[in-house]
Every structure is written in C-alpha cells, then in structure tokens.
C-alpha cells in the first residue's frame, strides 16, 4: 500500500507520545503475564443412607450460607388438564407454612432473620433454595427441611398463588417478547407437548388443595433430592445438621425417568400473532436442536460464539451494527440436558422493516453453510471461550450450582475440565459440520406485531397460520 508523505508524517507524530510514555496504542501490542494457577474448586459429595445426595463447598469470605436442593420433578410432569400443578405446588409449599409453623408465622420467622426460602418449579426440575446469615443457618435449615418434608399447604395461600397465576394468564399477551417466546416454543415442541403447553384459566381453576398434597406425597423423597451447600459453614457440623434434618426420612419408590412427548418433525411455515399496540415486529425463527451429550456439542459452542456471541459476531454485526435494523438481535443452537433444546434466531424491528429483517436473518442462517466459518473466525471464537473460561468457576456458588445440575442430569462431574480440553480440540471442519445443524428450510417463523405497514407480506415466507390471541375469558370459578 502506498501512503502519501503527509500520512506517514501524521502517523509518526501520533506514534511519538505513545513511544515516549511506553504505553500501548494497540491492544495487540500488550503482553500479559500468565494467569495465576487457579484450580476449579471441587465440592465434596456425600450420599446419606436414605439416598439423598449432599454436595458441600465451604466459602468463608462472607458470613452467609446458601443451600440449593434440586428435586426430581417439574412442570413437564403436570397432568395435561392441570397445567400449573407443579408451579402452584412449589410456590405454596413455601408460602403455605409447615405442620409446625403456620404460613404467616413462617414469613415472619424468615424475614425477621433476613433469611429466605423459596421453592420453584421449572420444566424439568424443582428447586428449593435457602439463604441465611451464618448464625441463623442451623435453625433455618430445620425450617427448610420442614418445608420440603411437611408442608401444610394452607388453602388461603393456594388462593393467593392461584390469583397470581391467573393474573399472569390474563396478561400473557401484553408483552410482545413474552408472547413470542411462548408461541415459538408451542410451534417447535408442539402445542400438546408439556414443553409447549401453557397454563390456562381452566387448568388453574381445576387444581385443588388435595392435588397439591398428593403431588407432594408422590414427588418428594430423599433419594430424589440433591442438596448443595455453599458458604460459611464447617463441613462436619453442617453434615451433622443435615443428617438430623433429613436422615430419618425414608427412601421412596424407585425413580423412573419420564417419557415426555414432543414433536420430533420440523414445522416449517409462518405463524402470525396480530398485535396492533406495538411499533415493532417481534420475530423468532428456528427448529428443534440437540443435547449437551451430542458429540458436536463443543463445535456448537464455538459456532454459537462466532454466530451471535458478541458485537463482533456475524449476526449482531450484520443485522444491528451494519444494517441498523434492530437493537435486539440474537440467536443460537441451545443444547438441552435431557431433551432437545431449540435452535432460534430472534429480532425485533420496526414494522416497516419486518420483511427486510426476516430476509436478513434467513441470509445469516444460510450463510453459516454458504460462507462457512473461516479458520480465523473459529480461532477467535475458541480464544474467547478459553480466555473467559475462568469465569465459569470464579465463585464457589456458581461451581456448586453447576455441579448440582450435572449430578441431577447424570453428566460427569468433571464436565467443566473436560469442556476446556474439548473446546481446545475443536477444528474448523467440525464447526462447519455443526453449522449444518441449522436448517433454514425447516424454520418455523413466528411473528408478533401489527397487521398493517409491513414491507412484505408474510406469505413471502410460506403458508401463514394465524395465532389466536383470544381476549381473557371471565375468571374461572374458584374458592
């Protein structure tokens, strides 16, 4: 390249102060000392006689103790006509008090100690969490055990929880992003799949206190619980307290992994939910993806990073920075632990550029194979994953949380150290092969937004199925 004399002079002038101060003017010129050796903290794993798995990781920096229990269950096991059972059950286990402490008294007890116990249902697991100051931990742990073992399910609190769930259903079409995510899942997993269905007024209205009691009796057994403890405790002492609280709890019937149905074939086409009170179209497209145990999982991690992992990634740079089409744009192939995750690309854009944005997303998806990842892109993505690797275990709470998840889904407990080695070994060819997992021809495209004012008709992208956003029906009979 030929430079003019003035350009060279300018370059020299600019370089001067930098040289004088001995500081870098380019990030590439910086040299870093090696990162101090820092091993991944390993929680201790103990199995109680009744089969309950306990994981402990001491952390004495702050006077806090936190416990998390993962319990086999989840909303995917709800009966079809009682969607919401696990969610209400989990919530009311905590808010409804225990056999030794009434519901309001339990709230008073915890909050006066600035402690918290919460129970929640996710799709594929239940989670109970405790947080307490060190001094209060032994007492709060006993209450925690009571919540798990002997909940009272105060009927009054069931009505409060039901009221909240009903309000959510009534509001479920108010926020376009939430509406989009729900309908996309429904299309991908199928409307009848426990992964696609949603709570309704009818399903919530059917759930009685007896249902919660039965649900608890069938679900909660010590051999279906993994309890993790992180914080300022002493191992022997904590184990003794855990044994006291849970040791006499008899084992339950053998656990059988559920067979949860979902749609295995792709659902190509377009789905449209008309919403006229917004100024953007909210768009999501994709299909079913795979499992974390799949052999190309690590190649997909690298692919996700170069596709949408940063502002410099393909998707964000092209759709947001270069074309200015959106503030929100993101996409990845999510791998599930025990059931397939979703491959999805999301954008929200002004109504007038709906078609342009769908085109842009489809182009990005096709380009993953048409202009396959280069060696440079792959190297950069790997470098990002590896140099930020330490953030996977920089706090003990995170380490423990991950170990609980691995234990729950039956993944090897040294998964994290394997991860580093595996990412190091990913080749460009493997990333290119993984990119073929994204199949634009199979995309379900879901659009939420105004009916008028788009730049292209949605029929451009396939047969359009309208999504019925019926206004909320009257509240179901309750009490």
């Amino acid at each position, binding site marked *: 390249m030929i430079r003019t004399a*003035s350009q060279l002079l300018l370059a020299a002038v600019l370089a001067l*102060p930098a040289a004088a101060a*001995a*500081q870098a003017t380019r*990030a590439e010129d*910086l040299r870093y000392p*090696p*990162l*101090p050796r820092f091993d991944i903290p390993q929680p201790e794993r103990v199995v109680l006689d009744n089969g309950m798995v306990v994981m402990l990781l001491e952390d004495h*920096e*702050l*006077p*806090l103790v936190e416990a998390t229990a993962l319990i086999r269950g989840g909303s995917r096991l709800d009966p079809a006509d009682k969607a919401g059972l696990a969610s209400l059950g989990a919530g009311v286990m905590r808010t409804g008090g225990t056999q030794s402490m009434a519901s309001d008294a339990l709230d*008073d007890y915890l*909050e*006066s*100690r600035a402690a918290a116990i919460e129970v929640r249902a996710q799709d594929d697991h239940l989670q109970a969490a405790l947080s307490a*100051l060190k001094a209060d931990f032994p007492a709060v742990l006993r209450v925690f055990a009571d919540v798990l073992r002997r909940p009272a399910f105060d009927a009054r609190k069931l009505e*409060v929880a039901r009221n*909240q769930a*009903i*309000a959510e259903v*009534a509001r479920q*079409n*108010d926020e376009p992003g939430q509406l989009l995510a729900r309908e996309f899942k429904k299309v991908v997993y199928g409307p009848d799949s426990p992964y696609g269905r949603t709570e309704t007024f009818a399903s919530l209205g059917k759930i009685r206190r007896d249902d919660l009691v039965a649900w608890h009796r069938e679900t909660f057994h010590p051999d279906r619980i993994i309890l993790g403890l992180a914080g300022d405790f002493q191992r022997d002492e904590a184990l003794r307290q855990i044994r006291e609280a849970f040791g006499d709890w008899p084992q339950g019937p053998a656990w059988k992994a559920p067979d949860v149905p979902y749609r295995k074939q792709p659902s190509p086409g377009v789905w*449209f*939910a*008309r*919403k*006229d*009170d917004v*100024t*953007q179209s909210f768009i999501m497209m994709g299909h079913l993806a795979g499992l974390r145990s799949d052999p190309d999982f690590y190649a997909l991690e690298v692919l996700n990073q170069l596709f949408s*992992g*940063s*502002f*410099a990634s393909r998707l964000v740079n092209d759709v947001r*920075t*270069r*074309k*200015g089409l959106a503030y*929100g744009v993101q996409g990845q192939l999510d791998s599930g632990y025990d059931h397939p995750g979703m491959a999805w690309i999301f954008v*929200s854009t*002004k109504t007038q550029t709906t078609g342009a944005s769908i085109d842009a997303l489809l182009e990005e998806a096709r380009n993953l194979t048409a202009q396959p990842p280069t060696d440079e892109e792959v190297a950069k993505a790997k470098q990002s994953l590896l*140099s*930020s690797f*330490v953030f996977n*275990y*920089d*706090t003990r*709470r995170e380490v423990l949380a991950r170990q609980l998840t691995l234990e729950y889904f039956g993944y090897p407990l040294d998964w994290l150290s394997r991860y580093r080695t595996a990412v190091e070994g990913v080749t460009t060819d493997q990333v290119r092969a993984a990119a073929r997992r994204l199949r634009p021809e199979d995309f379900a495209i879901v659009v939420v937004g105004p*009916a008028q*004012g788009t730049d292209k*008709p949605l029929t451009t992208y396939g047969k*359009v199925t*309208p999504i019925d*956003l019926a*206004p*909320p029906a009257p*509240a179901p009979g309750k009490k």
Partner: protein
Amino acid sequence: MNRNSVTCALALLLLVFAAAAPLAAQDLASFEAKTKVHVLQNGWTFIIVERPTAPVFSFATVADVGSAQEVPGITGLAHMFEHMAFKGTPNIGTRDFAGEKKALDALEAAYQAWQAERLAPQPDAKKLERLLADFKTKQQTAAGFVVKGEFDDIITREGGVGMNASTGADETRYFYSLPANKVELFAFLESERFFHPVFREFYEERDVVMEERRMSTESQPIGRLVEQFTSAAFAAHPYHQPAIGYTSDLQSITMTDAERFFQTEYVPSRLTTAIVGDVHAETLIPILDQYFGRIPARPAPPPLRTVEPPQVAEKTVVLEDASQPMYLEAYHKPASTHPDQAVYDAIDDVLSTGRTSRLYRSLVRDKKLAVDVESFSGYPGEKYPNLWAILAVPAFGVSNQQVQTALREELEKLKGQDVTDEEMARFKARSKANLIRSLRSNQGLASQLAEYQRLYGDWRELFRYIDRLDKVTKADIRRVAGEAFRSENRTVAMLVNKPGDAPQARTQP
C-alpha cells in the same frame, strides 16, 4: 498533601461497623483494609479493592452525566453517547484513521446539509433527495474504513464477560470483567474511549437506538405508561425527559452534537472507576497514571440550574391501552443525598418488601386486589429531588380504583400510627444482610462503590448508610409520611384496559 496522587488506605469502616453490626465488622474487615482511593491530577477518581478470591476482576466506570444534562432538541444524546463509547478511537476500530477522519468530516458536512434542508420551513423535495443520496454515498465511504466491532472484539477475545453499559437520568455506567492478568488491557481500552472517542457509524447507531426506543418504550405497556407518567410528574426539571429521547430528537441529533456533548460533559473529574478483584493497588496505580493520565483536565460545566418547583396540584394520567390495568402513584421527595433518604427506604421496606410487608398482606394476601406491589425511591434519578413511587399490578378483574383505595389506606396509617417494633427490627436486620449479600459479586460491589462515590463524593457512604438506617425512628417515619403523602404532592398514572380492544387474531397482513 501532594494532589498528584492522593492515595490513602481506609480503615475507618471498621469503626462504623463495630457500632452498627459487630458480626459484619469482623467479616468485612478484609474489604476495608484493602480499599484504596486514587485521584489523578485530571480529577478522575479510582477506587481499588483487592479481593484475590479468584484470578479475575471487574470494574465499573460511572460518569456523573445523564439525560438530565440534555436540553430540548438533543434528548437521547447521553444514551447515544453511551452507545458510541463502544465504537472505538483513532487506535481502535479503523483501517486508516487519517483517511477515516476526512471521510467522517465529509459525512458530517453532508448530513448537516441534508438536515438543514429537511428542517427548513419549505424543504425542496428534489434538493432533499440529492442531499440524502450524497449523505448515503459518504456513509458508504466512511464505512469502508471501519474495522467492525473491534472494541468489543478485543474484550471478547481476551476473555471479557458481562460487558454492558446503562444510561440514567443523572449517571451513565460502563462495566465488564476480565481475567486478572489483563489489567493493562482494561486501562488501555477504558482510557482510550474517554480520551478520544471516534463517533464512527453514528448514524447507523442512531437507527439502532430508535429501534431500542420502539422495543423498550413503545412496545411494552409498562414502557408506555412510565413515559407518560414521568413527563407528567416533573413540570420544570429535565427529569421529565425520557432518557431514551424523543423520536424527533433521535432523528435529528448529529455527530457534532455528540462531539460537543462529550467535550463539555465527559470531563475527567466527573468520572469514577471502581476496580474489584484480584488486583494489586501497588502495581495497578502506575498503570492507571500512565493510561488515564493522558487525558487532560477540563473544567466541569456549570451545575444544573432548574429546581423542580413544589407541586401544588395533583396530577393524573390515564392511558387507555390494549393491555391489562397497571397502577402507579408517586410523591415528590428530596434528593437521595438528603438525610431523610434512609426514612424513605425504611418506608419502602415496611410497605412492600417481602411477604411480611403491609401492602403484600393487605392488598395481595387479604383483599386479593393486587398480585404484586412494589415501592421504590430515586426515580428517575438520585442527584436531584426525585420521586418515591408505588407500582401495583391489579389482580384479574380488579380495577385501578379499587387498588388505589386500598393503597391509600395503608399510606394514611403510616401518618397516623407508629410502625411496630417488629417492623423496625426487620428492616434494620434486612438492610445489614442485604449489604453483606451485595458484596458477593465483584461487579456488584464495583458498581456500588463507584455509584456512592459519584453521588456522595465518598464511597464509604455505602457502609455509613447502614448506620443512618439504623438511626431511623418511628417518629421519623410518621413525619416523612406526613410530609410526602399529600394529594397535591402526588402524580397518579393508570393504564386502563380499553374494552373490546384486546388483540384479535386475523389472517396474515
């Protein structure tokens, strides 16, 4: 004392904690002893906390600059600058800065010419078209010099996580975390962008910000309600302006506006950076001096003059909307640095924190009128007199009026009767525990320290504040409730469901 490098170890906190919470004092001692403040000659303040629990560190830079600095015509500019702070410098993000500089100057001249015609009383359509075409050509030329996303790319490649920024009414925050061996990279990148930011891709990014406005304000029921509410609550103070900016302004702000805003507002003395993690002040400080010391001191702009006059009439905003009802009510209160702030926070706690709170027990548990009630203060900013507000989500089939009546009863009770001993004990215990919990994350701690330094001029206020909460009395709560909860001091905003206007399914557009 030599002002060049005022570095002091602060052990004072220990004493504060000994008085307020002996348990916490012991366990927090390590934080206090390892905290150093370092002020550069140009006025930039650094707070360094040595916390070698893992080989990582986080930082937060807080600029004492926000949308309150904007005047009509340039609303949204503080936030726009925040986006531009990721676009690089003469050293980052360009293939050839000398060439790019010329291209950017030409681009700006073309934009100004087009805009002058566009805003003329009678724009000439032909001329407009020609000027726009010229602008687009220049935009293409300038784009040719850009190394896309290089600023972010460097951070990501070197292992940075959690990179983001936020703009509020009176502060702008920039933050991320890096592996501990990359402090020099942080010093280089962070000093670069506040030394000589380059506003490349300005007009492309303006489109991105307009999409952000459509997404977060126009397309969310709460976004629509809050924008109307805020503009009603403040008559004179710039707090009434949306931080995201008005559409007309977003369509008109220029690169020149951004450059002027940066030069005037982003003076080093208005910047504070807190760094928390596996860092060593002794080795870090020379690096900070070297990189951040490059930035010349500039005079701070004069303080904001407008003071919100006392409200004399109740204001009510009713937004008819396709969404389900939502209720918001707010009262004017002093700036968050006022001694009564602790009392407002105590009121918050008693009214709406947790399942023991009065509003939960009354509105959610017993009367079943609401499914969620939150109160908060410091809206939309903290530096100037601001609002204490309650947001209630009515239960299905319940009107805003029913919620309002029940809510007012609780506010009235606070004026007339003392809160209980249990309530007093609870908020005091909770505030101490919350402080301890907030220390868990490097990033959270860095943000808090920088924020307290910006607001109070002393990061130690974060810890002293617990002491002030501890001193709040029942009489304080009654007094403040009486002062604040008056009808003429109130703004109400209601989102009312327009009947028969729920979104209907139809065939494709």
